[in-house]
């Protein structure tokens, strides 16, 4: 029952995310695009919550749907961008874009479905599975190893934020410090680019 509900919620939020992503591309007004983007990011955050990654879900909402969206809206309001009007000369460009993206989506979908044991633990590609390599131990070890089947159950007392913080501040401490310098460089660069350029 619990698993069924989480599956239904995943498909619901995945549909909302995909539809609002379409809204970002299709709407002519940039403000509508930004609002659709917020909805898409919020439902992505819901998918994270469903996967048990609470901290990343919160970060997704605060950083993407909060900070980044507000920056976009500020710029849209500051620049007074007008809506694009429909134009027939855009049609070839649109067709090319849709074809390229469609081919890419098809490729990714095919690759995901071809993962060893993609949907129900049955191997669709014999070459990838190597049935002789892991004879009878499969049932015991299948829970943990990377397979395309259902995600393994989370432990009830899994402390997401605690473990993520422990990983971040021990194993990845130096990259984390370097990352803060990247953020500082980004801020300084934004200020430098935003200055009025003197003509003399």
């Amino acid at each position, binding site marked *: 029952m619990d698993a069924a509900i989480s599956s239904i919620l995943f498909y619901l939020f995945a549909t909302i995310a995909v539809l609002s*992503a379409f809204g970002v591309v299709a709407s002519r007004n940039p403000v509508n*695009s930004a609002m659709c983007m917020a909805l898409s990011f919020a439902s992505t955050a819901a998918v994270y919550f469903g996967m048990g990654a609470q901290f990343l879900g919160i970060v997704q909402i605060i950083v993407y749907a909060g900070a980044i969206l507000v920056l976009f809206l500020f710029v849209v309001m500051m620049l007074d961008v007008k809506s694009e009007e429909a134009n027939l000369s855009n049609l070839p460009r649109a067709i090319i874009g849709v074809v*390229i993206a469609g081919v890419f989506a098809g490729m990714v979908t095919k690759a995901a479905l071809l993962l060893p044991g993609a949907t129900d633990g049955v191997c669709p590609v014999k070459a990838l599975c190597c049935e002789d390599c892991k004879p009878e131990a499969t049932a015991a070890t299948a829970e943990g190893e990377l397979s395309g089947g259902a995600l393994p159950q989370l432990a009830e007392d899994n402390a997401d934020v605690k473990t993520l913080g422990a990983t971040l501040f021990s194993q990845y401490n130096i990259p984390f410090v370097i990352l803060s310098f990247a953020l500082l460089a980004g801020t300084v660069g934004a200020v430098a680019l935003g200055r009025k350029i003197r003509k003399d």
Partner: protein
Amino acid sequence: MTPLAHYLILSGILFSIGLAGVLIRKNIIVVFMCLEMMLSAANISLVAFSRAQGTEGVPVYDPQVLSLFIVAIAAAEVAIGLALIVAMFRARKSVESTAITTLKD
């Protein structure tokens, strides 16, 4: 439970919608939004892999740390990119990608 493949497909579909937006739209602000969607779509598959690799109910947290880094880099990138768009608007009075033709002419 939802299979791993479906998370990867969701991530791929969101990524390709972003790709289509980057290729189709002319308004640079919307192109930039679509770039952000592509970054965020990559995060979904990282988190899904983090769950799939986990043992005894505990996910592997290295992919989640990586996607946290991606979020931070995306924030820095947005700050710089929007400053560039504002600078471009000052110089060209337009945010259409077709207005940048200095090297072409």
